[in-house]
Structure formats: structure tokens, C-alpha cells
């Protein structure tokens, strides 16, 4: 069985309620990413066919939205906020420290797939600036010591 074949059962489960409904592309892609951790490129033609779309249209949507990834990411997604409130309260410094701690740049994944680092323009938790999120956990008022402690707890 090739990669796609192993993914098909889960994939069809996601697609079934939306067959022939091109408007559902984004929710479908969101579910696919939720299940597989990313959007495997092999699945793309199948998704297109099921929703009655051209592969180019699907590819266009995947590459337009920053939420979608076509490659696997780490187990722990570390998101550093680069919104204005965080910026004004030292967000750049936070990013620098996180980059140093994880030895990763924005968008990179560690070789052991434990961490992925990304930045986002605003998480809406501005009162706690500067903010860092790991998976779904929010951490506010970051400083170098706190960052170190928090990241270590995910190692």
C-alpha cells in the first residue's frame, strides 16, 4: 500500500459529508490538517475530485492561507506573537530568545520533530503581552527565564 492508500479511509470519512460541495474546501482542508497534522500533497488530487474542483484550485487555496502546511510539523508548535502590542512590549526579544533556545528559525521544525517554531500577527491576548503559545496553551508576560522553563517542560 502506498502512502495515499493508507490515508484513504480517514480521508473519505472527512470528505463524505461534503461530496460535490466545492464551498466546503476550507473546512475540509482544516479537518484534514487536524487529523494528519498537515495536508499531505498526495491527498490533494483526491480532495479536488471529491469536491468537484480542479487540482489547481485546491492548490491555490492551500497556498493562499497561512494556516495550511504541506509538510509535517513538530509535535509541539511554539507560536510567538508578533502583534503590535507584543512588539511594543518586547516581542522581538522574546522571538530572539525562543529562536536561540530551540535553535530554529521561524517556520522551521527540529530534526527530531519535537518542535516547530512559527510566528503569528496577533493572538488577541494583548493584555498579557508579550505572548507565546505552545500547542493550545497560552503563556503571557514572557521573559527569558520563563521561556526557558516553559520550553523545557515540553522537551
Amino acid at each position, binding site marked *: 500500500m502506498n502512502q495515499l492508500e493508507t490515508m484513504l479511509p480517514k480521508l473519505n470519512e472527512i470528505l463524505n459529508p461534503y461530496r460535490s460541495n466545492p464551498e466546503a*474546501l*476550507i473546512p475540509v482542508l482544516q479537518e484534514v490538517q487536524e487529523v494528519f497534522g498537515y495536508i499531505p500533497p498526495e491527498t490533494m488530487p483526491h480532495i479536488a475530485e471529491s469536491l468537484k474542483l480542479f487540482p489547481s484550485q485546491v492548490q*491555490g487555496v492551500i497556498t493562499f*492561507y497561512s494556516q495550511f502546511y504541506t509538510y509535517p510539523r513538530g509535535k509541539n508548535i511554539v507560536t510567538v506573537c508578533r502583534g*503590535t502590542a507584543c512588539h*511594543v512590549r518586547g516581542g522581538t526579544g522574546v522571538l530572539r530568545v525562543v529562536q536561540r533556545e530551540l535553535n530554529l528559525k521561524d517556520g522551521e521544525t527540529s530534526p527530531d520533530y519535537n518542535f516547530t517554531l512559527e510566528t503569528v500577527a496577533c493572538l488577541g*491576548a494583548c*493584555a498579557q503581552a508579550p*505572548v507565546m503559545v505552545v500547542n493550545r496553551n497560552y503563556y503571557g508576560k514572557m521573559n527569558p527565564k520563563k521561556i526557558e522553563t516553559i520550553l523545557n517542560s515540553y522537551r
Partner: protein
Amino acid sequence: MERLKSSKDLLNFRQELIQQIDPAKPCVMICGDTGCIVRGVEEVIDAFTKEIERQGLKDKIDIKRTGCHGFCERGPLAVILPEEILYQQLTKEDVPEIVKETLIKKNVIGRLLYTHPVTEKKIIYEHEVPFYEKQKRNVLSDNGRIDPTKIEDYIARDGYGAISRALSSMTPEEVIDCVEKAGLRGRGGAGFPTGTKWRFTRQSPGEEKYLICNADEGDPGAFMDRSVLEGNPHLVLEGMLIAAYAMGSTEGYIYVRAEYPLATKRLKIAINQAEGLGLLGSKILGTDFSFYIKIKEGAGAFVCGEETALIASVEGKRGMPRIRPPFPAQSGLKGKPTCINNVETFANVRSVILNGWEWYSNIGTEKSKGTKIFSLTGRINNTGLVEVPMGTTLREVIFDIGGGIPKGRNFKAAQMGGPSGGCVPARFLDLPIDYDSLREIGSMMGSGGLIVLDENTCMVDLARFFLTFTQDESCGKCAPCRLGTLQMLKILTRITRGEGREGDIERLQKIGEAVKKSALCGLGQTCPNPVLSTLTYFREEYEAHIKEHKCPAAVCDAMVISACQHTCPAGIDVPSYVTLIAQGKYVEATELIRERNPFPAICGRICSHPCEFKCRRGELDAPVAIKSLKRFAADWYFENVGEPPSPFPVTRQERVAIVGAGPAGLSCAYFLAKTGYQTTVFEALPVAGGMLGVAIPDFRLPKEVIEEEIAHIRARGVEIRYNTPINTNYTVDDLKKEGYAAVFIAAGAQRSSQLGIPGEVEGLEGLLYGLRFLVDVKVGRPVSVGEKVGIIGGGNVAMDSARTALRLGAKEVHVFYRRTPEDMPVTESEYQEAIEEGIQFHFLVSPTRIVSEGWKLKGIHCIRMSLGETEASGRRRPIPVEGSEFFVELHTLIPSVGQAPDLSFLPPDSKLERARWGTLQVDPNSLSTNVPGIFAGGDFVTGPTYLIHAIAAGRRAALAIDKYLRKDTSRIEIRDEKVHVVDDVHLAAGEEMVEMKPRQKVPAHRPEERIRDFREIEKGFSEKQAKEEAARCLRCDLER
């Protein structure tokens, strides 16, 4: 719960719910919003649940997990009902005490209350806390009182009462009419009249109409929509129901951005519950009206907040805007008429219907009705969500509600409207905020993000920051935005890296305006706003970056090695000399200072220390006491280095003349001598030092210190000719004729300004002008003051005059200043010392007339002032309060209201070009006048300013004169330099974790003792203190 089949059912249900509520039952309303979760509220809620259970009080006490209360800075917080006591900054350890003392015994726990920052009073009740007092929480009224996951809480507070009324007693037309008359405008940013949009949609042909709620809150720094969605989702649903009814829509979407998973979750729960009760879905409340709401999640694209891009995204496509017309109201989702409104817009609708349009239109300004929620973030004490009526001023929001700027810093600007908005500088603090007033000044309301910036924010960096965001989010469809943002970003990045070029400002302006006019959608049309508005109001910052390679806020990494050095006008390598002091190398430290400043001992006593205000250590606990460290090193040098230094070798032929032996003149001479020139300084007085030599009292700057520093400079080969004024007998031209190849005029600003009021007669006994008074005392002339002395003014001369008068035997010394203490140019420590010595201050008072009898002073008439509108500088203009005059009896009056340069020594036929206000016109970069070879600088050109500016001007002139004499026409470039990097052994910077360590206090003589004579007040650091203080430096320069 049973399905409600009519409006009456709803009413009955509400009555039932209300009856079940016991208003006297203690209830803890605890904020469960994301912001408070980050601060650990989950543990607190857990602790409450467990404690109440443990004590068997489950039936007697309620805990309700509510949405955002707004006062995010003080979270985790809770309001205890029925009393409405506010407890803030809670930890799980506080819980047992709260349960025992407050919930059971009804006692208030003082330490958990909010303390008023000024009065220091503890405030018990929520509505008395200043943060809440000035707000008008209309949309947010339920937020702190309901559990957003329980529809019954919402219904008990009149929830769904508005749609019920609309369905039972209003036609769709009447609903639209009501919303139109109320004057509700779109809260997403553009402010389009909501009723009108509904009307257009209703009037568009076709049965199928869509309603979309834009919950794509993408503005960085804005989180009010999130808090409404998470804290009171039913409010939004109800607004959508009313809109749907009004325009005849049966299908609606809520488009929530991907980054708000909790909001999506809460909405889903709310929709489920509403459907279950028949308040949403088919045949609502038993009528023919049906409306279904689906949730669509965004996938991370800021541009999808734009309505046509949003529609494309709902349709499963790339979120690219399209051209309008046709507007969505005519042709939107799937080609059908679609009305898109923002979350906050929908959240306002209920109160319009329930309270009526007259009530609503009474709030706000003429064209902007109702309230607006602002997310107040950035450099502000009370971060959080603030809801105020339109027309509230920025000053009220930032200072009264927001609590002002932390660490006593100065307000610089507020960024409103996020990346689409513009900055609002201090001069507009009294502007009533509404849609139109903001647009007029180049900003916009936007979604309501209000980011406060202080003096440590670089406006160029801010513009670059916003462009980075919009450039990344630009969809790329239209060339102006795709290419324009890229080019603007490139230029801004170059400027912040110190690679700005001549013409960059004009380029930015041109590109920005072009993009505004030609971009396809709102993103492109507004993205130049941050650039254009910062160019309008902070052009000098751009120019400093480009022309002088300086970042005034000391932020731009590429140009700033350490903020202290960058901010010092003389560019002294502060971290290095501080480290040398920590290492015990005091002589080396002093020599390092002398590379940029030949007055270390004097500056160590009286410098205004801009470095300390930017010291990063100050973010942690308190800034390093840089000034006092400098004094310690210099004093040590003078005590321990016996031999005078040898003269600098003369390697150049040319001789340079300097007019005035003040700090600017002597610094110029010193650095010219160091470069190898022969210099002669012509000084009119018998003593050197300028203002330093004659105007600063001994108790701040002893004569011996001045003499030592000047002797050092002279030993280096600088010739000073005393009692040799340059005037009409011996002119600047004469100097040139004598063979001086260049002349630097640094004659200072020593002409006392007059008060300009009636009765001010020269020669009046008892009337002494401040500067003259100080000079006379310092040079030893006999001066006496009466028992009651009055000083007019608030600057250094005024302060020094007051304290000198005290030491000369005055019994009462009163200082009258027309502004407030914060506006006084003197340092905080000087002011405190004056108060300690018993000087009495009267603020917001101005003299109107001097009264005398014969030739003797009797007193002055004064008038009280109040603060009026904000001036361009950001300060408020004092205006006299009519009828508030009063008389003050005085024996001596010392006006000290400023000094001006005195150009009268220049012959009338001098070719030197004058500037507008009586000073000489000089090139700011080279300090050259219009006559080649003649330069001018220091107070003489700028008017009175701080010592370190004069010293920096002196050095700049030396560099310029050197270039001139070598026929080098290039610009003077003064960059931050490190001559050698000193190791950071023994410093705080080397440690893993920096501990808080208070700043060392400089020991001083006690006030009662020191006012008896003119002894120096401050004793200076001991060696131990100096080493410990120097070890607090974080060595920001080593981050490079």
C-alpha cells in the same frame, strides 16, 4: 428546557428564571477569559469549587465563570455579589480566606482590593474603580455577570427580548428605521451607517439574502470582538437575528478567524442552545421567521477581513477581494445580496431595539452615536477593554481610565486603527474620538485597537513593523498593493538599518499616496496610513535616522550599540566606563569619558543624564546611576592623579579662535587641541566655565571642581585669555585678520528674559534677575535678600536662585511657576532636594503686576492658571482663571524665566546671517555660519539647553573645523563608537538570572544642616557603593 413557541413563552421563561435567582445569594463572578487563563485563573476557579464543596456550601454560594471583565491588567479578578466587591490579582492561596471572610462573614479583605495610584485609597466596589467609573459599558454590560455557556443567564438579563419585541411588534421596515435613526455605524472600521446597509440589502431584488458576521478580527492589538464572542455570544446571535428579520434573510454565517478556537467553541454551544429553545433555526418564537446560522472558520489571512475577500473565503476560494460595485448588498455570497457586519456592530443592535433609537442617539457625538469598545494595550498601566461613548477624548481614555504611562514616561502617540490607521500624537490628546475627527487627522477608528506608545518607541520602526505585516498579508492581486508595500517596506527597512538615503522620505510619501489612491481594497488603500501619518507628525525622526544615523528613541538595532550611549548627545561609551569602574580602574574610566567629554567631574554632578532614562536596567528595577558613577571616577582621578597631563602635541599649522570659555567653547578647544591644533579661547569674564563657572551655586557644583577641570583642559594646551571680550572693539573679523584660520562663537545665552509685566522697572530695589543674582553670589559680590523671597520660574536658574536665597538668610522662599510640577525642566532629584530644604512651591500661578513704593519692591499680584487645550508640544496651555488674582507681599523678587543669547557684541555690519528669533543661522550638521570659517554653537545658537548638548556641540564644531581646514567638504558623521570592548567580569550581565537589586542612593547632607551654608549637598558614592552600582549594568552593548 422546552422550546419557546411565542414571545409570551419567552417572557414567562424569563420570569421563571428571575424568580429562581436570589439577589442576596453570594456569588463569585470570576473572569474566565483567555487573558485571565494566561494568568492562572483556572487554578483559582478550581480552588473556589473545591473550597465551597469542602465546606458544604454548594447550595449557598454560586460561582460563575464569566467572560472578560475588561480590566485585564488586574487579572485574575472576580466580583463578589451582591455587594459588587472587586478583588483583583487573585491566586489560589487567596481562596479559602475569601470564602471564609467575605462570602460567609461579609468582611472585606483589604489586600485584594484595588488601590488608587494617586490617593492610595483602597477601593471596594467595582463601579468606583477609576478604570470602570468613566466607562459606559453598554455592549459589555453582561460580560462580567453571565456564564457565556448558559443561555438562561442571558435570557434572565433580558436576552432575546429585542428580537422578541421586533418579531411581535415591529415590521422589518420599522426595525431598519429604528437602527437608522439611532445612527449606528459599522464598528469594523469604516463606519458605514448600519441601517442604510440593511436597507440596501433589503431593497435588492431577490428572495435569497445572506447575512454574514465578520469575526475575522485581524488587527494586531485588537481583541474586543474575541471578548464579546467568548463572553456573550448570544448578544451577537441576537443582533444577527434582528438584522436577518429586518432584511429578509434566512441564512447567516459567522466567519471566525482561525486563531480564535475558543470563540468558535462558545458560538457553537450558543447556537445549539438557541436552536434548542426555538430562538434560532426554524419558525423562531413560533413566527414565520426562520434563520439558520453556520460557522465558517478562517484559515489565517488578514485580508479576509475585507468583505469581498471574506465572501470568497466562505465560498471556499482564495480570499482575494474584487472590484466594487457591485457591492455585497447587491451581489455578494453566491451572487446574492449579502449584508456583512462586524461583531461589535451586531452586539450594539439589541440595545437600540430594547432602549429605543432616541436613547441610543443621545450617546456620542453628532455624527458618531453610541459607545465604542477599545482594546487599550501597549505602554499603559491599565491594559484591557474599555467601552466609552463616542466623543470621549484620548486624554480621558489614556489617563483617567488607562491610568497613564508606566514608569512615569511621556506619552508619545497612540496608534489607532491598527495597520490601517495612523498615529495620534500628544497634541491631539483633547480630540474627541469619533469616526470623522480621526479621519481628519490622518488616522481612523478601525476596529478599536488603541496602542499607546511612549518616548521609547521609534516611529520609523513602528511604520516598518506595520508594513511588514501588511506586505505579508497583501493578497497580491493588484499591483499597487503588491508592489507598493514591498517598496515602502524596503525603504523603511533601509532607514531603520541606518542606510537611509537622500530622497527616501519623498519616495515614501509618493508611493504611499499612490497606493492609497489606486489599490483595489481596503487593505491596500489604508496600509500606507501608518507611514504617512508618522511622516506627518514625526518627520524629524525619519530625518535623524537618515541624516544623522540616529534613532531618537534608541531602538533601531543596527544603529544603536547600547541605548545609553546612543541617547547621550556626546555619544560617551557608557557601558565601557561603567565596567571599568566595576573593575576598579577609575583612571581608565575617566580617560574613556574624556574621549567624548572633557568635563567628567562637572557632568557627574549636574548632567541631566538622558542616558539614565533609557537605561534598560530601568525596565527591571531602577536605572544604573550613571551620572553618580561618572562623578565617582572623576573625583577619584582628581584626588589620586597628582600630575597634570602633558599638552597635546601640536601637529597642525592653523590656529583656531574660540569666543567664550563655556562648556561648548572649551570642549571645542579641547578636541581641536587633541587633533593637533593651537587654540585660543577668548573669555570676557575673569573666570572660565560660562554658565558652569558663574551660574551654578556651590552647593551643586563647588568652585574647586570647576577649577580642576579647567586646569586640566588648559594643561592639555588650550590657551584661555580672560577679561578679553570680543565686541565692537575687537571683532570676529579682527580675529580672522590676526591669522586665526577659523573661529567658533560659543558666547552662550546669558541675557535674562524679562517678565514683561507692568511694574517691572530696572533698578527697583529688591528686584534681582535670576542669572545675574547667581553670578553675583558665585563671584563673591555682596548680595542680600529680604525675609520673604519670591522666585518666578521653574527651571535650573529658578531652582538654584531659590536655594541660594535660602542660604543667604531668607526666612521664606516661594517659587511661583505657571505650569505643573511635571512640566518643570529640572531633574526630579533637584526638586526633591528643594522641597526638603523647605522651599514652597506654588504651581499654576503667574505674576501679573509688580507693586512698588518709591523704589522699593512691595510685592506682586498673581493670577491662578488652569490647564487648557493641548499645544503642539503635547503640554497643555495654561490659561488665567478670571477673578482669581491675589497679592503676595515680598521683599525680594527674583524672576528666572529664561535666558537668551545676546548678539549685541556683534558689530551691526556683521555679515553673519541671523535666524528668525535673534540667533545666528547655522548648518545643523557642521555648525557653520554663512561665512566660511566662522562657526557657532551651544546655547548661543540653540538658546538655553542642557550642559551635555553644549559639550556635544563643542566636539561637533571641532570635527567640522578640522574638516574645513583640511578642505574636506563631507558631512560630519558622529556615530556610536566603541574604542575598546571591556570584559564583563563581575557584572550582572554575566549572570544567568538577574536579581532585582535596588539602585545605590547617593548620600547627602541633611536639609536642616546644609541650608546654613553653601557646602556641596551630595557626598558622592563610596568606593564600595560605586563598585556595587556599576555591577548592576547589563552590558547591552555586548549583545552585538
